[in-house]
Structure formats: structure tokens, C-alpha cells
């Protein structure tokens, strides 16, 4: 691990000012992803800003009947919160589908949104990676890419976003609240928060340098049946090959997908269609697959079919 200066600011604005003053700085919350990357020197921050004591760890009622989740609420606590279990079950389900008990005790709401891809070439500093080293190329395009993205990719990057939680947040139309060093605040819709790779895969979010996430807000509960179905290579503690988050009501349905794209994937236009085949075709329209990951098209359609059958058992006949 490279040497860094360690800072423990007293409040969020000090944290944002420190980050703005030091371009090589990183905030540390749970640290479960950042320290992993620092050990292999994919991340080499000159300054570490410890934000664990900023009081951003509460879950409160939000205006309009929603829920405001502090950036530092741990994944375990969010999944176990009674209001989340009752009104946003898809979020609880997505959270407990991810990582391990130990990691969920540390990992935070904002950190989960900001976690980096597990593309093997992003981790391997001996190989080209446009996300890690802009302009160096993409070893994944012709390499081991079975787990990587099939939609939303570019000629420069096919990395997939690893989060389960973020897929549920996208489904629920969450808003990301931020603070900048000049005191300005923003509310970024989750749909605009994660960027597609395009020609700049190293730019992953809408955050400006030094901008700190303070909370994630959920709108009022949707009701309906909440489902998160994750398919992976082993039964537990593995990243998704494909995951489907769904809220299904008699009058409306919405779906978001994990494991297939550089960001949580949702195609609103597909939600007015009927049946897994039509919805899956619309969601993966324009997909660019490789020999190794083309199976995800079939897997997505079948997983969606299983979700629909689960949500509407009466339609099985």
C-alpha cells in the first residue's frame, strides 16, 4: 500500500473541503472495496479522508412519505430496518443478496453505489485497462469476459457494475444527495448518477471532484410485490451473472437488472410490454455480446420469466 496522509474531519463540509484541496484524496467509509484496491495499488490515494464520524448514519422519514438514508448507514442496518423490510422489500432483498455478513456490517450505502467493477483486468496492473489507466486499452475485449457487460458498453470498456443494492435503488427511483466544498448541495436522480463508459470509462459517476454523498432518498412506497432474483456461480457470496429487481402491481410493473451493464440497468419503455420474451428483448436491445457472455441474454430472459411467474402465480395456468 502506498503511503497516504490520514484525515478525520469533524463534519461533511470539512470533508468536502479537504477532498477539494487534495485531488489525490479518497473518502473512506466502510473501506471494504477501497482498501482491497489500495493493497493491489489500483488505488493509490495521497490522502485518506475518514468520514465514519460525520453523523451520516441515520434513516429518517423524508418529505412526501419517503425515506432518507444517510450515506454511512451500513448495508446490514439498511437491510434490517423495519421500514425498509416492510415498504421497500426489494431493497432489503438486494442488500442481503450481496457480499458476506462481515462485509455488509462495514459496507455503507454511498460506498456501495461507488464501488468499482470486479473486471479482472481492472485489478491486474500488468494489463491494459481504460478505466484504471485512460488510453491504455481494454484487455477484457479479447480476454476473459464471461462475467462482463452485454449492454451499455463501448469499444473502450465492457466492465459490469457489481452492485446488487444499486439495482434496487434504480428500480425505486432513488435520489443521491450531495454536498460540495462551497456548501452547494445537489439531488441527483439515480438514473443520472452512474455514467456509461463511452470514450471515458474512468468517469463513473456524476460527482464532481471533492463532492461528497450525504444521503440517498427513496420516494414514497410503491406497494405491490417486491422481488430480487439473483443468479450466480455459487449459492452465496458471489457477484451476479444476472439479477432482476421487480415491483409488480396489478396496474403497473417495473424492472431493473444487474450483472449485465456498466450501471444498474433499467429500460422504462420495456415496462409497458407483456411477457418475459418481449420485455427481455427490449431491455437488451442493441446488446453486444462475446462468445463467453452471450449466455446472459438467455439467462436474463429466463430469470425474468421466473420472476414474473413468482409474482403472478395465477397466470401460470
Amino acid at each position: 500500500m502506498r503511503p497516504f496522509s490520514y484525515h478525520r474531519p469533524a463534519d461533511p463540509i470539512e470533508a468536502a473541503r479537504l477532498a477539494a484541496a487534495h485531488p489525490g484524496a479518497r473518502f473512506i467509509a466502510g473501506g471494504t472495496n477501497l482498501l482491497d484496491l489500495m493493497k493491489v495499488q489500483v488505488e493509490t490515494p495521497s490522502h485518506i479522508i475518514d468520514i465514519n464520524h460525520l453523523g451520516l448514519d441515520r434513516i429518517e422519514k423524508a418529505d412526501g412519505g419517503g425515506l432518507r438514508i444517510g450515506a454511512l448507514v451500513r448495508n446490514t442496518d439498511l437491510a434490517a430496518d423495519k421500514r425498509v423490510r416492510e415498504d421497500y422489500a426489494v431493497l432489503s432483498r438486494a442488500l442481503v443478496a450481496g457480499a458476506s455478513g462481515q462485509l455488509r456490517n462495514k459496507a455503507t450505502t454511498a460506498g456501495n453505489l461507488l464501488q468499482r467493477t470486479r473486471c479482472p483486468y481492472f485489478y491486474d496492473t500488468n494489463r491494459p485497462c481504460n478505466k484504471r489507466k485512460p488510453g491504455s486499452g481494454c484487455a477484457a475485449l479479447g480476454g476473459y469476459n464471461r462475467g462482463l457487460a452485454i449492454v451499455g458498453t463501448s469499444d473502450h470498456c465492457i466492465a459490469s457494475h457489481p452492485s446488487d443494492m444499486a439495482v434496487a435503488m434504480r428500480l425505486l427511483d432513488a435520489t443521491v444527495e450531495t454536498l460540495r466544498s462551497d456548501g452547494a448541495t445537489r439531488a441527483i436522480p439515480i438514473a443520472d448518477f452512474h455514467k456509461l463508459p463511452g470514450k471515458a470509462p474512468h468517469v463513473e459517476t456524476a460527482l464532481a471532484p471533492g463532492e461528497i454523498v450525504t444521503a440517498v432518498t427513496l420516494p414514497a412506497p410503491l406497494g405491490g410485490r417486491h422481488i430480487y432474483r439473483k443468479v450466480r456461480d455459487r449459492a452465496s457470496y458471489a457477484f451476479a451473472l444476472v439479477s432482476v429487481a421487480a415491483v409488480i402491481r396489478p396496474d403497473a410493473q417495473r424492472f431493473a437488472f444487474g450483472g449485465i451493464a456498466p450501471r444498474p440497468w433499467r429500460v422504462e419503455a420495456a415496462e409497458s410490454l407483456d411477457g418475459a420474451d418481449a420485455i427481455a428483448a427490449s431491455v437488451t436491445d442493441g446488446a453486444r455480446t462475446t462468445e463467453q457472455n452471450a449466455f446472459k441474454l438467455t439467462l436474463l430472459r429466463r430469470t425474468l420469466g421466473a420472476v414474473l411467474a413468482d409474482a403472478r402465480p395465477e397466470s401460470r395456468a
Partner: protein
Amino acid sequence: MTRRSVPATGAATAAALSTTGTADAAPGRCAAPPEPMPVRLEVNGRMRALSLDPRTTLLDALREHLGLTGTKKGCDHGQCGACTVIVGGRRINSCLTLAVMHDGDQVTTIEGLGAPDDLHPMQKAFVVHDGYQCGYCTPGQICSAVAMLDEIERGVPSHVTADLMQVAFSDDEVRERMSGNICRCAAYPNIVAAIRDVAGRGEKA
């Protein structure tokens, strides 16, 4: 806590900060090791004062600086669970957190759960049920299991919980919740039996 000033951020900011180490090092250049930083940890009921390079993980602080080698280093990347300890009542991977982030925290390691002549019920159950072969993952398994039963007690749901509002002990719950602890010898059936035994006796940490 010792508070040091941050030269680069000015006096107003520095007053609110605790910091240490070097100024910005150019990427790719070898910087001088950071200045050690004071860290206080309450480990197994005893307050310990340390002076640590801020890069020191909690795992290395326990093993290398406090001589508590019961906690094991396996993968050092949060994948195997051998380094599991209990901090503030919660199990975490001690390899994926910095000791400086835990200034003032309460840490329980395998040495704090029980001693050879006074075993914790979970340690006893692992012996009775032969919940290991080589034993390297065992301290992590035991710390994880103790905190995991507490999570069930507190109603924390898991991936296999059928009804999110009804959290109860079962073998399936144990297998899912212990998936962050790998046993290369595959003593899993006996590990589950040991945990079931402790849960059934109602003996909790």
C-alpha cells in the same frame, strides 16, 4: 486524541482535524513512510495504546503489534473470513479496515472469547463436533458464528429468510450467513452442527 495540524489545509480547517503523515507524494514516486499515529484500541477488555503507520490494518495491529496471533491472515482481501473479529459487537473482516479507523473501539478476538481452561460455548462446541481439520480458519469461524447468532437474535434478515419480518434459526440460515468464512478442509457439516448445538442450548455470547 492527539490532534496535529494539516499544513496544506490552513489553520481553520486544521483545528477540526486529526491527521498524520506526509504531504502529497507524486504518483509513482516512493514517498517516505508516514509518521506513526497514536491509536487506542480496547482489545478483549483491555485498553491498548499503539503508535501505528496509518496503513496498518486492524488485522496487522492485532497480530504484529499486540501479539494476538489467534486472528489469522488468509487472503488479506476479505474473501476468506479467517481474519474475522468482533468490533462493537459486530463481526467484520479485520484485513479490510485500518486500525486508525477504530480509535477507541472495542475489539473482541478469539483470545477474548475464551481461554483453554475456560472455553466459550462456541469454542467448546467446535471441539465436541470436530468443526475443523487444520484449524486455520477456526478462529474466524468461531468469531463469525458468535456474532452471527446475535444477528439472528436481532432480527437481521438473510438471503434465505423466507419472510423478511420473521427471522429464525435454521441450518439453511447458518450456511448462508457463514458463507463469508471459507474452510479449505471442508469441515462445513461439523461447523453447522457446532453452531446448531450452541443455538439449541440457548447459550449466546
